[in-house]
C-alpha cells in the first residue's frame, strides 16, 4: 500500500455532511449583515480595558516584576529572542527552561528558532519535550564551548526541495570560518571547498597566520563534494587578515603513496607544518610524517609500518619529537615519533592495574595533558583480553547481540567499566598527576584562560535502542572539568545531557 494512499485513506470519512453545510450556511444567511463594526470596536475596547487593568495590577506586584526581570536577564544571558513574546509568555518560557519541563509550546518555538541557526544536524527520534530539552542542551553546550579567542567554524546547510517535492534534501553549502579575538569577530571567510558533514575542522595559530585543517567528503569520480564520497584531508593557511594564502588537499601530499589521506594530525610552528597521516600499501597500514614549508610544499617525508589501523587525530611536541594521538571509533592510542621519524613507539599508560586509553592530547608549555578512558584490567595475564574487546568491539549489528541483561544490570556493568581520567606528563615525560572521575567517559580537551578544560560524560542511564541498529543508547550528563596547569581540579560545571550510542557487546560477561 502506498504511503500517500494510507495517509489519505485515514481521512476518507471526513466529509461535509448536508446537516453541517445547512447549519453553517443558514447561520451565515441569518447573520446577513456583517456584525456591527461598532460592536467589534466596543468588544475590543472592553478586552483592551480589562487587559490594561489586569496588566496594571500584575505589574504593580513586586513578585511579578522580579520574576519578569529575572526572565529578561535569562533571555539576555542566553541570547534568546524576545520578539513576539508577551510578558507572560516570557516568564513562562523562562520557568519552563529553568524547571527543565520543556512542555510550553513557545519554549519549543524559541529553541527551534535559535538552534536551527546553530546547527541543523541535531535531528533525533526523541519526541515532544525530550527533543526540545535535547535541542536546548545542545544550544547551551555550543555557547559554553564558544570560541572567545581563536577560530570558529560553522557548517552552512540549507534544506531544499527535491524535484518531486515529496521530501527535503540537506544541501551542504560550505564552511564559515571566523577569527574571534576577545569575543569579537576579526575576520570571516566563507569557503565552499569544505564539506565536513559535522566533522569539525581544527586549527593552529602561528605568528604568520592560521592553519585550518580537517576532513572533507569528496566523490573521487566527479571530484564534487558529496557525503557519499570518500573523505579527504584539507589544510589551508590564512594570513592575519583572513585571506587564504594556499589550500592543499590529500592529493598534494600523497607523494609516491597510492593513497589520499582521509585524516591527518598537524603540528605547526614558525618553520611550517609537520603532518601525520595514515596510508595503506598492500593492505598494510603506515603512519607517515611529512614536513611542509610555509608555502605548503612538502620538503621531507618518511613512513613507518603500524600494526593497528588507526588514524592520526591530533599531535603535539614531546621531548625531541612528537606525540601523535591515533583513533578509531572508541579506540585511542598515543605514539611517540622522533623528530627524524625513525623512532616510532606506542606509549602505553598502565598504572595500578588500570590501562588508560587516550582520547585527546594537548601540550601547553612543555607539559602534556591526556584525556583518557581509565579501564580496569580484569585479567593479569591478558591485558588486552576480553574486557578490552568488550569495550571496544565495533560490531553494531543488534540482531547478533546476545543481550540478556535488563537496563538496570546493563547500567551497572557499563558504569563499572568506565572512568574518565586526566593524565599530566611533565617536561621530561614523567607522569606528574592523574585525576579520575568515576563512572564517566572522557572527552575532548581545551586550553582556555590559562586553564585546562576537559569534557567528562557521566553515565546516568542506559537503554536498549529500539529504533536503530545500535545495541544501547547511553544517557550522559556532560560536564566541563576545569584544571590548573598542574592538573588540580578547580571546579566542574554541568552543561547538558547527551545521548550517545554504545558499542559494547555483553557476551564476555555471560561466559
Amino acid at each position, binding site marked *: *500500500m502506498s*504511503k*500517500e494512499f*494510507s*495517509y*489519505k*485513506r*485515514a*481521512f*476518507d*470519512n*471526513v*466529509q*461535509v*455532511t448536508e446537516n*453541517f*453545510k445547512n*447549519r*453553517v*450556511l443558514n*447561520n*451565515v*444567511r441569518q*447573520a*446577513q449583515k*456583517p*456584525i456591527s463594526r461598532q460592536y*467589534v470596536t466596543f468588544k475590543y475596547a472592553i478586552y483592551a480595558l480589562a487587559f490594561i487593568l489586569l496588566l496594571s495590577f500584575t505589574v504593580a506586584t513586586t513578585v511579578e516584576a522580579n520574576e519578569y526581570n529575572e526572565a529578561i536577564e535569562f533571555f539576555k544571558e542566553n541570547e534568546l529572542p524576545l520578539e513576539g513574546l508577551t510578558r507572560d509568555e516570557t516568564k513562562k518560557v523562562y520557568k519552563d527552561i529553568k524547571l527543565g519541563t520543556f512542555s510550553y*509550546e513557545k519554549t*519549543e518555538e524559541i529553541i*527551534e*528558532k535559535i538552534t*536551527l541557526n546553530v546547527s*541543523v544536524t541535531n*535531528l*533525533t*527520534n526523541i*519526541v*515532544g519535550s525530550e*527533543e526540545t530539552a535535547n535541542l536546548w542542551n545542545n544550544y547551551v553546550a555550543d555557547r559554553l564551548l564558544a570560541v572567545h579567542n581563536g577560530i570558529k567554524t560553522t557548517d552552512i546547510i*540549507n*534544506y531544499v*526541495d527535491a524535484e518531486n*517535492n515529496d*521530501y*527535503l534534501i540537506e544541501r551542504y553549502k560550505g564552511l564559515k570560518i571566523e577569527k574571534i579575538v576577545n569575543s569579537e569577530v576579526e575576520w570571516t571567510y566563507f569557503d565552499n571547498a569544505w564539506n565536513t558533514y559535522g566533522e569539525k575542522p581544527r586549527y593552529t595559530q602561528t605568528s604568520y597566520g592560521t592553519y585550518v585543517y580537517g576532513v572533507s567528503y569528496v566523490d573521487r569520480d566527479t571530484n564534487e563534494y558529496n557525503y557519499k564520497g570518500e573523505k579527504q584531508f584539507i589544510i589551508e593557511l590564512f594570513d592575519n587578515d583572513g585571506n587564504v594564502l594556499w589550500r592543499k588537499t590529500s592529493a598534494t601530499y600523497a607523494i609516491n603513496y597510492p593513497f589520499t589521506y582521509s585524516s591527518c594530525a598537524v603540528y605547526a610552528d614558525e618553520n611550517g607544518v609537520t603532518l601525520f597521516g595514515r596510508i595503506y600499501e598492500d593492505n598494510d597500514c603506515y603512519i607517515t610524517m611529512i614536513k611542509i614549508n610555509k608555502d605548503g610544499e612538502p620538503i621531507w617525508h618518511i613512513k613507518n609500518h603500524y600494526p593497528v589501523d588507526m588514524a592520526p587525530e591530533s599531535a603535539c611536541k614531546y621531548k625531541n619529537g612528537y606525540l601523535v594521538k591515533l583513533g578509531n571509533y572508541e579506540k585511542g592510542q598515543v605514539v611517540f615519533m622522533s623528530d627524524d621519524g625513525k623512532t616510532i613507539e606506542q606509549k602505553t599508560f598502565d598504572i595500578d592495574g588500570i590501562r588508560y586509553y587516550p582520547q585527546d592530547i594537548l601540550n601547553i608549555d612543555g607539559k602534556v595533558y591526556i584525556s583518557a578512558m581509565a579501564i580496569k584490567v580484569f585479567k593479569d595475564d591478558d591485558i588486552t583480553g576480553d574486557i578490552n574487546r568488550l569495550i571496544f568491539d565495533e560490531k553494531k549489528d543488534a540482531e547478533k547481540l546476545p543481550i540478556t541483561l535488563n537496563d538496570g544490570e546493563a547500567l551497572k556493568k557499563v558504569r563499572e567499566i568506565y572512568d574518565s581520567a586526566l593524565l599530566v606528563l611533565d617536561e621530561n615525560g614523567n607522569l606528574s598527576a592523574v585525576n579520575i572521575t568515576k563512572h564517566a567517559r572522557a572527552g575532548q580537551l581545551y586550553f582556555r584562560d590559562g586553564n585546562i578544560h576537559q569534557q567528562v560524560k557521566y553515565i546516568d542511564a542506559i537503554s536498549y535502542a*529500539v*529504533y536503530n541498529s545500535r545495541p544501547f543508547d547511553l544517557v550522559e550528563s556532560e560536564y566541563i572539568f576545569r584544571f590548573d596547569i598542574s592538573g588540580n581540579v578547580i571546579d566542574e560545571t554541568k552543561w547538558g545531557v547527551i545521548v550517545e550510542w554504545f558499542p559494547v557487546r555483553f557476551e564476555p560477561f555471560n561466559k
Partner: protein
Amino acid sequence: MKIIVDNELIEKSFERYAPMLLRIAYQDTQNQADAEDAVQFAFMKMLEKRDFEDENNIIAWLIRVTINKTRNIVLSPWRKRNAQFKEDMWATPDYESMEILDAVKKLPKKYGTCVYLHYYEGYTIKEIARLLGENENTIGSRLIRARKKLIPFLKEDEQL
C-alpha cells in the same frame, strides 16, 4: 483588487475549502463535532471581515482561524472532561488508518498541520510557509522531524 466579503463569497468559500478545513481540524480534535465547531467558527468569523487581498489570503486566513479555534477547543478543560462521551461518525475506517491517525496525533500540533498540507493537499513547502506565516526552513525542518517521528509508529512500507 480587493475581494469584498459577502454571503456569496462565504458560500463559495465554504464549497471550496470546508472539506480541507474539516480534515485539518479533525487531525487535531479526532472528533467530528469539535472539528465542525471549529470550521463553523471560522466561517462565522469571516462575516466580521470587510475584505481580503486575494484568494490566497482567504484560504490562509481560514486555515489560521481554524487551527487557532481547534487549539482552543482541544485545550478546553470542558472538552477534556466530556470528549469521550461524544459520538463520532468519522471514526477511522480501518485499523491501519487508525494507526496512522494515531501516529499523526502524537506529533506536536504544528507538525501535524504541515504533514497534512504537504502530503494530503499537496502544498509545497513554500506555500505552507506562506499559509502558516512561518519561515520556509522552519516548515522544512518540521516536515523532516515529523517524518522521523512517524517512522517508529508506521510499518516500513507506510513510512512517509
